[in-house]
């Protein structure tokens, strides 16, 4: 059941930004996006579905490109936009879905690998499924809570307008903060060994 949920999220969520585009009148780009991501999904399904993260990656990169070429400084300088989206905020916010599905697809990949390896090593199949389901369920709860909280926080920030910061200051502050966070996380992860059971 949990496996099915992970696959569903990994397959459906990368398509959502393009469905949002379709709904807002950008049929050509929306359909092209759906076709491209669908093709990647089909290819990964042919390889036992363990590379569903490629679909999320392709969706994320496509959404970033479309967004970059449809709004902001680049269309302003080039005097041409890739597409005109009615509610660009909804499209930009929909980037949360491929990001979410990217993590879920890695969880699914890990789930499949563990289920396969542990059954070879003599673990009871039922027990392995139950424990991996619990792990995946627990991670989904964390991810969903983080997604819900990020939406709530975004709404709060935009509603109350606490800070009036110009884009470049925001960029520098956010970059510095995340570089430090990323360095800390990567150092912590590097410190963990790869112990084989």
């Amino acid at each position, binding site marked *: 059941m949990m496996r099915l949920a992970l696959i569903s999220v990994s397959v459906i969520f990368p398509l959502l930004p393009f469905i949002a585009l379709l709904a807002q009148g950008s049929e050509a780009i929306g359909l092209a996006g759906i076709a491209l991501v669908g093709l990647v999904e089909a290819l990964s399904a042919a390889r036992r579905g363990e590379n569903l993260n490629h679909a999320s990656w392709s969706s994320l990169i496509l959404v*970033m490109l479309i*967004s*970059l070429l449809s*709004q*902001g*400084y*680049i269309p302003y300088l080039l005097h041409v936009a890739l597409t005109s989206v009615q509610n*660009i*905020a909804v499209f*930009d*916010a929909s*980037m*949360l879905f491929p*990001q*979410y599905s*990217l*993590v879920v697809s*890695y*969880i699914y*990949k*890990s789930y499949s690998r563990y289920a396969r390896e*542990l059954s070879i*090593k*003599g*673990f*009871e199949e039922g*027990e*392995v499924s139950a*424990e991996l389901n*619990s*792990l995946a369920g*627990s*991670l989904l709860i*964390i*991810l969903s*809570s*983080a*997604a819900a*909280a*990020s939406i709530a926080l*975004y709404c709060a920030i*935009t509603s109350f307008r606490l800070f009036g910061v110009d884009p470049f200051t*925001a*960029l520098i502050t*956010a*970059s510095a903060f*995340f570089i430090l*966070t*990323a360095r800390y*996380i*990567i150092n*912590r*992860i590097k*410190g*963990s*060994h*790869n*112990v*084989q*059971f």
Partner: protein
Amino acid sequence: MREIIKAMVILAMIPAFMALLATVTASRPYIMPLIFSLLVIFAALSLSEKPRIALSLEFDKDIVHLGEEVSVKVEVSIHEGYGLIMIRGPPIPRTDMAEGFELVKGTNVHVVFKGFRQVHREYEYVLRAVKRGSYPVEGVSFVYYHPFGIVEDTEGSVKVSGVIKVLPRVKLISRLPARVRPKEGVPSFSPSRLGSYSTEFWSVREYVVGYPYKFINWKATARNAGGNLMVNEYEREGVRTIALLMDGSLWMRYGSDVENPLEYGISLVLSLSRVFLRYGYSVGLWVFPKGAKVPPSPDSDQYYRLLRALVEFRGFSEILTLDEAAIRRIAGLKAIALIVTNVTAGNVGEISRISEELRSRALIVDIIPDTILMKNIVGDPPCGKWFVRDRVEGVYGRLPASVKVITWDPACEGVGSVVAKIHRHMMVWDQ
């Protein structure tokens, strides 16, 4: 957890691009994926406590016979931490115990997910003893994986002291047919060289170190031309001595780890010694080339001494040889020698030498491994006389005339039948 760790690294890297994108596109909704990454990282960091794992292990018995089952219970309690814990109870691969036991019910490997709540699990599985031996109980080992890779993978184990002994199969022969029972009283052949001295005079001989001074025959010493100290020799209490010579060399290990002449030989030696001791014989054991030695004794604990010596015996990689000191010692006992071996063209010369130097009647139990090997391949063993005839024509002719050979094919004939044959031959010698 490699994949989830990779996802964490990606989540840590993405915000930098998101911030750049938000600036270039001047779009505020990009804050959402940025916050999302931040919150997931925050959640991963807040779950970075190491787990406290308490494990206990329990066996329902510590002495089993070959083929018997042992129930194992493992209890696991995990406090704190977050992640997958893989647990392995005994037998741990590549240890002695893994060779001696097989899983018959359940499994000794388990996986536990420790989420936000405390976990307590109990596992039970059943092992069957498949190889004789004494096995130190290994503890329970575990490996802990943190799904986000924030906490390093941890390996650990809980050691449990103790030993499980797997005793060989012993045929319990409650009584022998009357015609093969030994005669009562002091036998005419091969009197016992052990036990306390009786008042029955045996002979006068030269003094040797260790002999009691009270038996010095001063008159015979005075008359002795060489001036040597002479002593009276008296018969000892008890019946005859049987020297069991167990071959532990490479020839005895034809076949699998659990079915080979050595394993069958040990089973035969123990079954025989049980019967001999029951009828008052003094039984001793020599495992050669250089194994355990159990001095002959007729007492009731002797069986357990023999059992202890044989349970832990592993066999040698050398070929058969028995040192001169051991041969002299056995010859000095005037015992009936019973050699349990697998006679081949390669060792028949050495067996002949031992038999001759023992200077007493010897009985060889020749354990044929061929049918055991065939049984593992074809299932239904061909219990003909092929292999016996092959040996009679080939190697038995090279043995001394004083030696009697009893051929035993364990795949076709039970221990009880061989024990009866051995007794029958001994009674013939006794008359």
